[in-house]
């Protein structure tokens, strides 16, 4: 062999190498190999989304014990209506039975039917219909139960995609998808980039662009997955957009997964349109490609119970998912317990209404609070979080700049919020802020911290291009002038107790401000005309 021929002249080194080689192979042997899945970091838990959780775990905020700790605003958990659940359990200890009463115990303990308890599936179907204002029908026989929506989404990916295929997901999207949908299935995700110009709405152009990108990369696209209401945006998807998405899926012959786990957390029930409604309105045309995911973790605030569901209009998917659900079944005891809770109409109606109201109050409170601190949020109407714009604070509008700010907020403001880049947002500076996993008082502390941060020496955007620089300088001047006007206003408000004079004063200031703005705009125009080279 060529190899030995080359080595032979150096006999000494050869034997020595052989010895080394043998030693090394035995060394390697002592470490018994694991799969790539276990050893690689495709679980994606190294992203800031999870790093923030770790920081929180190390130093959690506690009003009494650790008032300077990190406040967790990265966890979409609903605790605002726990009292209602507690009240129900107190009032109906026997009715809930915790699934352990004498009656039916035998079936309960032995229950291994993949389909899940009939009574529970019925209750789930009714609950889902109720959330959608009875505008959509759900057949209990099409509900496949899983241990949480995480498992439901993974299971659908297993069924719809082979390793190497891809799903399109409108971005920004829930950071967990990168792990949940890709890790074991071997599927890929191509983000459909949406941007702030239209409030991050999904458009056919964006979908088509992502589809073309995926095809160009050599992927076979198997489906599009939407979250409605959107996580992290906290907005619902409008009816025409939903129709467009379904038409897009049909045109490209792909599946459509509609993850509606926040459907009961829409502040006003009329503002939510389910994909199920669209399917029914279209007379079940193209319905075989539509799959709805639901869970009780968010709307009922019961993530610990691990109840998720797949509702598919495709018979083959239902059958396969049911078989595959053997890997992720829900404890029969839990099913039984929830079946009686969800079958209690009075409780369910009261719960949904109160929960919606409380979430809206929380949402409005935090959005107002942030506004006072000078921070804008995307207009949201659902969910347990708001989508906050800190782009004006970025040193540079890049992912790095965003993460720098995120780190600053985590370490100095001691708030764990989720950076938009972990959600694959195409614009830097957006953050998801959860508000339902804490008490009102903790939320107040969080807002106070944010306000202090904004009032402090905040980093100002570094301006690069020259014409832009001039424009920005003018803008900033205008801003600061307006600000001093506002201060004057407050000063006057305090000074003049006479309401009439205050009004007059205000009117005068308004006029002056308008005049001032007009001159500023003229100034700006003149300045811009100077910097721009004359054309034509």
């Amino acid at each position: 062999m060529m190899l030995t021929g080359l080595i032979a002249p150096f006999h000494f080194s050869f034997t020595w190498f052989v010895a080394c080689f043998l030693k090394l192979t035995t060394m390697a042997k002592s470490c018994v190999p694991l799969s790539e899945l276990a050893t690689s970091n495709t679980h994606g838990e190294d992203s800031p989304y999870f790093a923030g959780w770790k920081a929180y775990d190390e130093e959690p905020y506690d009003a009494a014990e650790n008032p300077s700790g990190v406040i967790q605003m990265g966890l979409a958990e609903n605790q605002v209506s726990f009292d209602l659940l507690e009240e129900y359990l107190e009032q109906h200890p026997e009715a809930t039975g915790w699934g352990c009463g004498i009656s039916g115990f035998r079936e309960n303990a032995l229950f291994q039917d993949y389909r899940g308890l009939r009574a529970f599936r019925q209750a789930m179907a009714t609950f889902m219909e109720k959330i959608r204002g009875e505008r959509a029908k759900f057949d209990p026989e099409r509900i496949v139960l899983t241990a949480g929506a995480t498992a439901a989404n993974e299971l659908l990916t297993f069924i719809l995609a082979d390793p190497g295929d891809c799903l399109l997901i409108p971005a920004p999207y829930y950071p967990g998808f990168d792990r949940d949908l890709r890790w074991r299935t071997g599927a890929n995700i191509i983000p459909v980039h949406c941007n702030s110009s239209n409030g991050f709405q999904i458009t056919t152009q964006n979908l088509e662009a992502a589809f073309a990108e995926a095809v160009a990369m050599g992927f076979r696209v198997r489906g599009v997955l939407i979250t409605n209401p959107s996580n992290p945006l906290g907005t619902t998807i409008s009816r025409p957009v939903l129709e467009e998405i379904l038409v897009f899926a049909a045109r490209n012959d792909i599946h459509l997964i509609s993850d509606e786990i926040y459907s009961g957390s829409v502040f006003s029930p009329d503002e939510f349109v389910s994909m199920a409604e669209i399917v029914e309105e279209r007379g079940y045309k193209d319905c075989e490609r539509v799959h709805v995911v639901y869970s009780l973790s968010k709307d009922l605030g019961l993530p610990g119970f691990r109840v998720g569901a797949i509702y598919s209009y495709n018979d083959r998917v239902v059958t396969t998912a049911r078989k595959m659900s053997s890997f992720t079944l829900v404890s029969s005891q839990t099913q039984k317990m929830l079946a009686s809770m969800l079958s209690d109409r009075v409780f369910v109606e009261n719960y949904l209404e109160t929960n919606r109201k409380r979430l809206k109050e929380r949402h409005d409170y935090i959005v107002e609070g942030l506004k006072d601190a000078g921070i804008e949020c995307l207009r949201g109407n659902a969910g347990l979080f708001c989508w906050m714009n800190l782009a004006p604070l970025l040193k540079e509008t890049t992912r790095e700049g965003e993460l720098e700010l995120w780190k600053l907020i985590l370490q100095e403001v001691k708030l764990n919020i989720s950076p938009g880049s972990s959600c694959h947002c195409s614009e830097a500076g957006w953050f998801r802020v959860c508000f339902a996993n804490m008490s009102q008082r903790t939320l107040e502390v969080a807002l106070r911290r944010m306000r202090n941060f904004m009032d402090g020496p905040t980093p100002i955007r570094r301006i690069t291009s020259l014409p832009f620089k001039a424009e920005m300088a003018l803008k900033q001047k205008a801003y600061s002038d307006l600000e001093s006007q506002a201060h004057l206003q407050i000063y006057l408000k305090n000074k003049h107790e006479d309401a009439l004079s205050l009004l007059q004063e205000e009117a005068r200031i308004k006029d002056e401000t308008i005049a001032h703005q007009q001159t500023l705009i003229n100034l700006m125009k003149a300045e811009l005309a100077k910097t721009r080279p004359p054309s034509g």
Partner: protein
Amino acid sequence: MRLIVPLQAVAQGRGGLVLGSLIPCALFYFLQFYLRRHRPSSSSSPPPSSSDSNLSELTSMHRSFSRNLLSTRGSAGPSCISSRGAALARGDDNPYYVGLKRCAEDPYDASSNPDGFVQLGLAENRLSLDLIRDWLVSNWKDSLLSEEQELSVRGLATYQPHDGLMELKMAVSEFMGHIMQGSISFNPSQLVLTAGATPAVEILSFCLADAGNAFLVPSPYYPGWDRDIKWRTGIELIPVPCRSTNNFNISIPALERAFNQSKKRGVKVRAVIVSNPNNPVGNLIDQETLIGLLDFVTEKNIHLISDEIFAGSTYGNDQFVSVAEILDVENFDKSRVHIIYGLSKDLSIPGFRIGVIYSHNENVLAASSKLARFSSISAPTQRLLVSMLSDARFISEYLAINRERLQNMQALFVDGLKELGIKCASSSGGLYCWADMSKLIGSYSEKGELQLWDRLLNVAKVNATPGSTCHCIEPGWFRCCFSTLEKSDIPLVMERIRTVIQSN
């Protein structure tokens, strides 16, 4: 990389001008040599590249097979599902699942449906349910609500660790220790809890092997593994046949042969998986064989998975020995041994979905506790079990009574079969017996066996599991689970089987 780094260290240590110039040259050739030898096997899981000429015939065959599947599916019409999904849609004709389905649709009940199907195909224990029920009736309230009022909803409803509450891990490890009669103690931090043993086996398989790798499985083995292990992971199961001549005990030389054969085919074997007590035979693996197995996996540098889900359902004189016990005494590398356990069989609560992975391997524990997020156990169920398992008096009473009832039932059932002229393999554990009906089959083949299964199911309305679904190479063996029956049902079952024998 791992290879290069230590070599450099060695090179620097020995230094020298001559060596310094020779080493890089030799190193390069060795690396080439090493890489060439190792590339085909180690790179089997990244995206398939057909140009890789080093792939053996079989791997490429496997791949083209899956491609065929894709293409037929592609022409099948709109909104097709993945080949993974489709693979199972075809698996419906497996007698194991057909029988289970028939029984579920029309189950026998002595009073309400005496003409229904008798279920001997499901390893489910109904003998001691009354004990569990009585405990729950008197304790369920305390177990969930009153202990610490503060805990009630907040401790149940919010997100909990995906791999199980620490309290439950402690209770389960205690329980496992109890089942092994205190001979070993299990460390709760080495447990990962999942929603049933099915996901436990699957998660462990995901951690140990890549798609296209294989596990050696002494056969006959539990038919569910073909679905649980192979389906989503893409792992191959290679049956290593055991023979009736030595009561289906595991033969190390047979494992050795199977290992070498798959090596020749280019299939990488990553583990041996055994069930102890064996399912479907019901025999125990003795200490000597366990040591043999450990020697084997150490020599081949592969893993050993021991499914001990029936560990507490033993009877008879043979003492159950867990592989964990051997590890405690003998000097083996612990990181390659993993135990699967669950409460479905020993505590007869399959509906509650509690499965366990017990491992000494930190990487396996880290990965599987992350994977447990896809099959977590409901928190109220966990709380309930924490208090049930912590009731030491109840547990020891339950285990003792359950063992006794199991033994009685087994004796009755096996005697019943004996009277019909059907002998069973000698067994010491499990909820079933392994019956030899080879004298009753028309042709001594799988076909003959399935004909008998069909007659048992459709004529006698008795669902037993045919040995062929367990990959038994000797035709005519059937697994019959007796723990779903009442004592009073046995004469009826025997009578039904007799009709089939007589119509022969």
